[in-house]
């Protein structure tokens, strides 16, 4: 999956292959899951909402469907492993402190922003919700700037 490491390109030499067909297939499955969750349970497929409802449940009924979806999500990589023979790659360029800081910032941001890439970026955009379109533009912009600063200004 990973191209040969070259010292002069990208940080940690973490170049990744362009995978249009696999990524499109993955995207269609994400959309299918979002559609089916709306069809059967009438809910938005947002990872933020599902996680927040698990760690601070409002009712038992509300907790259990989220726990079921979460259990399914976590089984995903094993199914990919079973079918393709390879566990999906998880390559983390961030250092341990940056991973923790990044995770904390994501938690704060998605709580105030009421959603993330799945809730706003996929489901909200598909509903043509002005709030979700604005939220998606906002986080895409700051992610781009952050990556630029880390890689090309700080040169990490």
């Amino acid at each position: 999956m990973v191209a040969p490491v070259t010292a002069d390109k990208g940080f940690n030499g973490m170049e990744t292959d362009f995978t249009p067909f696999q990524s499109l297939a993955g995207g269609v499955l994400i959309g299918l899951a979002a559609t089916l969750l709306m069809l059967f349970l009438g809910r938005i497929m947002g990872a933020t909402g599902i996680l927040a409802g698990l760690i601070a449940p409002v009712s038992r009924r509300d907790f259990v469907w989220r726990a079921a979806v979460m259990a399914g999500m976590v089984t995903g990589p094993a199914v990919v492993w079973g079918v393709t023979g390879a566990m999906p790659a998880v390559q983390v360029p961030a250092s341990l402190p940056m991973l923790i800081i990044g995770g904390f910032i994501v938690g704060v941001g998605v709580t105030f922003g009421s959603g993330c890439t799945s809730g706003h970026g996929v489901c909200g955009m598909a509903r043509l919700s002005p709030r979700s379109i604005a939220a998606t533009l906002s986080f895409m912009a700051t992610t781009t700037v952050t990556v630029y600063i880390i890689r090309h200004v700080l040169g990490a």
Partner: protein
Amino acid sequence: MRLVFGYLIGLIFGVGIALSGMANPAKVINFFDFAGTWDPSLVFVMGGAVITTFIGYRLVLARPAPVFETSFQLPTNRKLDPRLLLGSGIFGIGWGIAGFCPGGALPALGTGQISVFIFVAALICGIFAAKWLNVKLTRAA
């Protein structure tokens, strides 16, 4: 039945995330690195997901109600408030630093890699911190 369907839907999502590359921070960060090792794959993820959901929602929301519930739970807030835009902007900074978004990280837990657990633990701390701050801000207002 709700739980069986919930599990299977989560599984489809998890397989989709795993195949798409969204669970791989190196791939996510490369998507945003237009000036460096750009990997446009995520355009195909977002395109595939948004178009499929757009068509799917049109069909599903034409129904009077979901299969297992009495009504669809759709967000009703229409305001573009500073909290939404600032919060989303903050999320993007964290996403750029760590390379994981919540939807990418939760299925990635299933790979058993310790870095994903560390990220999710930090993510949960951030969610609790923001909830606590939200209560404070609401009281102060």
